[in-house]
């Protein structure tokens, strides 16, 4: 074979050999070294990286847990405890996995809030947002399935309550539920299939995350000003400028998650899940995972079972069409004086829904849940299209370098005042 026919791009002959056959080296250089990041991005832009790292941590720890776990109703609880007691650093694997899942949701929620506040979902990144909501749906399914596996009281009764929702669907409901459970009640068949699905879904998530990342790299990252990149002047290379910020974010996040894993590993868990599943004893109140609680609150706010189910799924599915509900051209809420406050109220409202979702659905809690539900849908379906039409955005800088000139000027002005 004539070697000279291979174009020489790199000094290293091995890299050349690879690059000629699979241009992955130049791809990595283009996407993870020279990729232009708007230089005004704040630390909210590090949560995507944090989420990716957490996903990898969850998959790796999960694979090791799977080596020791037994998916059988008689043995699942004991096998989890065996991991905690007899497997070398098994407690670390398990606490990383369970708390990692909770933090995955926290990080992804912040990532979504970032996307909503700065209008990252708008043209030309709509598909990116849709892929993201799809990832969120998959995460919810995966975490629910995973919560079943330790086969404690909350595992069993959580699975019973959630699968019961499907029986609310007219005509096919009961059949669908039986088909999902593999039995008429939650039992060994259910545990087995939940385990199989819990193992495979994270890899689906990983695949969609890949698409999500490729998609954002096509038109580049959004930025706090929500304006398009006009020239290279407004950007920095991904390596090393963004990498170093992401690494700093990982360090800060590492301190927080380690504090929970090592010093309060069960803070975010339900105590009842340390009692082995007992189909004859119902816990005093069955609570959802706290990170799914806002949707649980919506479910219980409706007296009708089918209505609750429809609204709960609707609350997530409506996010898919958010790019078309928002009629405003301006991306960033920084330049939307009215919408900004309704957006913040939406985040607070979501948090309140989560709080009442953890409480019994009665009295004041139920009332708050209903108000929260109205605002959730009212914001997305009425306020978002309406405010977009009437709002007059504040002046938007023409380019990213303008923002920096401005801030530099104001910095200098401050400096002079001090002097």
């Amino acid at each position, binding site marked *: 074979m004539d070697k000279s026919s291979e174009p020489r791009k790199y000094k290293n002959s091995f890299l050349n050999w690879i690059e000629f056959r699979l241009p992955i080296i130049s791809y990595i250089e283009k996407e993870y070294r020279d990729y232009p990041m708007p*230089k005004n991005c704040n630390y909210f832009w590090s949560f995507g990286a944090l989420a990716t790292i957490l996903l990898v941590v969850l998959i790796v720890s999960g694979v090791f847990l799977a080596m020791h776990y037994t998916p059988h109703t008689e043995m699942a609880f*004991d096998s989890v*405890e065996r991991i*905690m*007691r007899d497997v070398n650093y098994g*407690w*670390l694997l398990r*606490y990383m996995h369970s708390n990692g899942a909770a933090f995955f949701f*926290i990080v992804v*929620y*912040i990532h979504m809030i970032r996307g909503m506040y700065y209008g990252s979902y708008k043209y030309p990144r709509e598909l990116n947002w849709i892929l993201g909501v799809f990832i969120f749906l998959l995460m919810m399914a995966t975490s629910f399935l995973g919560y079943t596996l330790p086969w404690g009281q909350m595992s069993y009764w959580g699975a019973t309550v959630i699968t019961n929702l499907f029986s609310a669907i007219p005509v096919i409901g009961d059949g669908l539920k039986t088909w999902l459970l593999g039995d008429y009640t939650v039992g060994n068949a259910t545990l087995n299939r939940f385990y199989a699905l819990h193992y495979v879904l994270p890899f689906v998530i990983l695949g969609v995350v890949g698409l999500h990342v490729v998609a954002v790299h096509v038109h580049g990252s959004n930025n706090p000003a929500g304006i398009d990149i006009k020239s290279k002047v407004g950007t*920095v290379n991904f390596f*090393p*400028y963004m990498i*170093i*910020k992401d*690494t*700093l974010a990982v*360090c*800060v996040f*590492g*301190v*927080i998650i*380690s*504090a*929970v*894993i*090592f*010093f*309060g*590993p*069960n*803070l975010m868990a339900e*105590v*009842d899940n*340390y*009692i*082995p599943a007992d189909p004859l004893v119902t816990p*005093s109140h069955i609570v959802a995972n706290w990170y799914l609680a806002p949707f649980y609150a919506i479910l219980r706010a409706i007296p009708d079972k089918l209505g609750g189910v429809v609204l709960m799924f609707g609350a997530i599915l409506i996010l898919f069409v958010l790019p078309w509900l928002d009629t405003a051209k301006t991306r960033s809420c920084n330049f939307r004086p009215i919408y900004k406050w309704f957006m913040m109220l939406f*985040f607070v409202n979501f*948090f309140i829904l989560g709080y009442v979702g953890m409480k019994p659905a009665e009295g004041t809690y139920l009332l708050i849940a209903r108000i929260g539900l109205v605002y959730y849908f009212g914001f997305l379906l009425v306020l978002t299209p309406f405010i977009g039409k009437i709002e007059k955005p504040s002046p938007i800088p023409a380019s990213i370098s303008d923002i*920096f000139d401005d*801030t*530099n000027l104001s910095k200098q002005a401050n400096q002079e005042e001090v002097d």
Partner: protein
Amino acid sequence: MRFVLLIFFFLFPNFNLLAESSSNEMPKHQWSFDGFTGTFDRASIQRGYKVYREVCSGCHSMKLLYYRDLIDIGFSKEEVKAIAGEYTVIDGPNDEGEMFERPARPSDRFVSPFTNVQEARISNNGSYPPDLSVITKAKKHGADYIYNLLLGYKDPPEDFEIGEGMYYNEWKEGHQISMAQPLDEGYVDYDDGTDNTLPQLAEDVTTFLTWSAEPELEVRKNLGIKVILFFVIFGIFIYIAKQRLWRDID
């Protein structure tokens, strides 16, 4: 926002729980295993094991523990062998196809007082004494709940109607418990001369139960300090590097 709240919840872990207990707050006991550097008091665990063996184990199983685990709390291999030898387990089948009884070995699990749930219920007035292996993780307020429960037997208030075969306990949900007061002053004699008052017995057995629920606690906290230190120190270097890199950008 969420972060702030999370840190808040972390700093005040009882906040959420306290809000739920409507009547009165669970008193907080000082434990040797509390805090970032807490460790188990070995002598207390050993005394607690004695309390479990002589009192609790009459009704409560601890199926997740092996006799060999007792080596971790300071018993020697010979002592563990001797302790295990006092119990009988059913093994088999042997070459003749018969099940047979033999003394327990350190590699055996703690022998349960009852062979099945039904036997446990019929011997306990219809109630099932829960397994105690992870009981402090399975109750809100954990060790504090167990400790206060053991001290919480009182005469019921005048207007309180107590069920047949039930006892009044201040800390049990609904204030009715089917377990008679299990411990009182002098129920167990300690070998090391520690006063066997009720609070002392309760504290020791709770320490033992906490160890059994979280045997990894000391290793966990120790490793945690190192991991957090790593992130802090590495983070400081990264911060300095980041400041230098970005200095010329603005």
